[in-house]
């Protein structure tokens, strides 16, 4: 078993009242190149900052080589950081920037006195030692002879190299890199990716890398930690994560995917787009599943040979391959192929069993805690919705004073009764008009599912999520109001209420 250099144990972090890291646990092997990957705001940078010591976890532990370092200040940790915008000291030149850490450092030297006894002394590094180390670091990043240059005269790429040299010159056990290539242009970024990988190989230390660029993560990492909403979604090798995404979020975020709703129709058989396919994953019969098919796993063939038959509606040249979109019935599928097709052409399509990935849908229904109000509406997720309260008691009706009258004639005042509210994935619609629905929220996720989009709308106050399907295209982060028809709100009494 490889040695765990860093281990996070049930780490949670709040900024004021905002939960940014939600009970995260994982470990980092010594010497590996690990990448935290996720969209902005997923908590990857916060995780890195907690390892560096700039932020302290609200609860949980961070272990370095088995020692608890959760509350250790940054200057006491054997960890160095390459900052997002480099954070080079503008008043110091290249040499002084790189030497900064060395000048702070104290080493224990062993000497022998005249009688032969050895003794130790804690000393600063000599000027000569510092000079040698700085020169070595500059050579490593290909900036020999830049010692006297001032930071402001350097290009972005050169500043980047100085920032890396400044960190590795201290010989840290772990090098943290916070989106270090974000400010560089595409070509430069590609070059630096290869150089960083090479540097990792030569130095042999652990690299922890943060990025939102999935391609960068796939290219460079030994291990990828996919994060979203402050939660680790999946940990694995680039190949493992790409080929076997743990959920639709990972499938959508890493690479491109066709994500479809499917049903298990037999032993290793799944039905989607109206056809039955062989697959490798086993699920229970009739279970609804999310089906993920990578665009390159769809093989085009003659119409008569394909399980699926569709019409090409767009062809985009992407350099190495063509991105072809085909319409199959009401579904749209994206295909990557080195062969081109013409728009309007009818094609057949096949998917091999190992190209079909089934996963349990994360969302099957929406559940909330609600409270009945005076006017027989239900309050949940920062809003108030009209509902049919008679469903709580079979055979009941509402009298003219708005009291609920049970089948046996007993009158009940439902005000402040707590209920479980359930809303189906297909029973929610949204509108631009903030007044139209019962509550408002922002669209935080959009996933295309072949013939519809799956949206998640999150309310701003209590951060409740509404997951639903829609055929309309919306924009992420739009503020929308959530509309639920009265008869689609399913209420059940909470257990405690039943006893009353």
């Amino acid at each position, binding site marked *: 078993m490889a040695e765990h250099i860093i281990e996070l144990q049930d780490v949670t972090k709040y900024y004021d009242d905002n939960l940014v890291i939600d009970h995260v646990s994982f470990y980092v092997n010594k010497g590996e190149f690990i990448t935290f990957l996720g969209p902005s705001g997923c908590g990857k940078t916060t995780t890195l900052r907690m390892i*560096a*010591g*700039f932020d302290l976890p609200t609860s949980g532990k961070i272990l370095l080589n088995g020692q608890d370092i959760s509350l250790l*200040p*940054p*200057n006491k940790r054997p*960890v*160095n*950081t390459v*900052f*997002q*915008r480099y*954070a*080079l*000291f*503008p*008043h110091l030149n290249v040499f002084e920037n790189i030497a*900064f*850490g060395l000048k*702070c*450092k104290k080493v224990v030297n062993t000497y022998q006195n005249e009688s032969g006894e050895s003794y130790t002394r804690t000393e600063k590094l000599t000027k000569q030692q510092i000079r040698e180390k700085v020169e070595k670091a500059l050579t490593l990043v290909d900036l020999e002879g830049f010692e006297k240059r001032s930071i402001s005269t350097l290009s972005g790429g050169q500043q980047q190299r100085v920032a890396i040299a*400044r*960190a590795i010159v*201290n010989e840290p056990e772990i090098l943290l890199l916070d989106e270090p290539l974000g400010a560089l242009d595409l070509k430069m970024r590609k070059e630096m990716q290869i150089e960083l990988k090479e540097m990792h190989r030569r130095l042999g230390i652990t690299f922890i890398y943060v990025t939102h660029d999935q391609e960068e993560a796939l290219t460079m990492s030994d291990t990828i930690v996919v994060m979203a909403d402050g939660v680790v979604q999946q940990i694995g090798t680039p190949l493992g994560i790409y080929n076997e995404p743990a959920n639709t979020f990972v499938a959508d975020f890493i690479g491109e995917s066709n994500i479809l709703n499917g049903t298990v129709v037999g032993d290793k058989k799944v039905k989607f787009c109206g056809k039955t396919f062989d697959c490798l994953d086993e699920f229970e019969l009739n279970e609804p599943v999310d089906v993920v098919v990578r665009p390159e796993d769809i093989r085009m063939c003659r119409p008569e040979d394909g399980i699926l038959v569709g019409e090409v509606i767009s062809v985009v040249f992407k350099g190495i391959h063509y991105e072809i979109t085909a319409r199959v019935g009401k579904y749209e599928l994206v295909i990557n192929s080195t062969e081109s097709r013409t728009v309007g052409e009818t094609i057949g399509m096949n998917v091999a069993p190992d190209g079909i990935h089934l996963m349990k849908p994360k969302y099957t229904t929406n559940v909330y805690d609600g409270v009945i109000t005076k006017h027989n509406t239900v309050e949940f997720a920062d809003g108030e919705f009209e509902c049919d309260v008679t469903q709580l008691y079979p055979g009941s009706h509402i009298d003219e004073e708005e009291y609920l009258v049970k089948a046996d004639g007993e009158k009940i005042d439902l005000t402040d009764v707590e209920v479980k509210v359930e809303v189906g994935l297909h029973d929610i619609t949204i509108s631009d008009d903030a007044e139209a629905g019962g509550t408002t929220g922002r669209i935080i996720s959009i996933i295309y599912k072949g013939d519809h989009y799956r949206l998640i709308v999150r309310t701003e106050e209590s951060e409740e999520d509404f997951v639903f399907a829609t055929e309309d295209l919306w924009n992420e982060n739009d503020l929308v109001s959530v509309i639920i028809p009265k008869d689609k709100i399913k209420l059940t009494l909470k257990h405690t209420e039943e006893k009353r």
Partner: protein
Amino acid sequence: MKIPRFSRKTLCVPYAVFLLFFVIIPMLIILFYAFTDKEMHPSFSNFIRFFSDPTKLSTIVYSLVIALITTVACLVIAYPVAYILARSTLKKKFVILMLFVLPMWINFVLRVNAIRELFNLLTSLNGMEWLAGANYFKTVFGMVYDFLPFMILPLYTTMLKIDNSLYEASADLGGNAFTTFTRITVPLSMPGIMSGVTMVFLPSMTNYVVSDMLGNAKVTIIGKFIYEYFGTDWHMGSMVALVLLIVVFVSTWLSGGFKSEENVRGTNL
């Protein structure tokens, strides 16, 4: 109708006229007076009289010392205030900043008067009688009180511009709080220190209102000197003014104030 059009040159004329009449000609007049005697004959007598008179020289030295102490006191008080305010995450920190700066907007003479009354009150207390004679102390106190905002503002604006990640980088590289302060905070706030120093040092050499009112007229600074001479002897007054000009020029030059770098002289409050 023809729209009158001004070239850049014509637009410069008013400023050139202003500079000519209010800067260049007055300077020449001062030069002229400084190097002539009462009969308007060219003469170095003022120059010789000034530098051979120990009281005049000691006034210059006193002024410099008072200005120096005032500046250092302002810096020592203002630096922590500016640092704490600039780095705090308080949402309403500008309110605190305003409280420090607010006295600037109240009439200067009124403020000095208030300080004098305060000192008079204190002097009447038991055990505080020593204050009556502490003219230099009271002068410096008044100046520090008056010029403190001019030190806080440039310091605050410079420190606000220091990226938080630089402090983090310093800590990350093993720097403790002291190292970070001496090697990051101080050098990066140098432009603010410089403009704060300039804005406090120069007025405290010449602003004799404070020394007159708080120093019982026992403290004579160079500004007072010039004022008095211009009542009796313009020639000597001009010479003193000229000497002050040179002192100011040299001290600004020494502090690097002529470098056209991002010297923060104002504030974007």
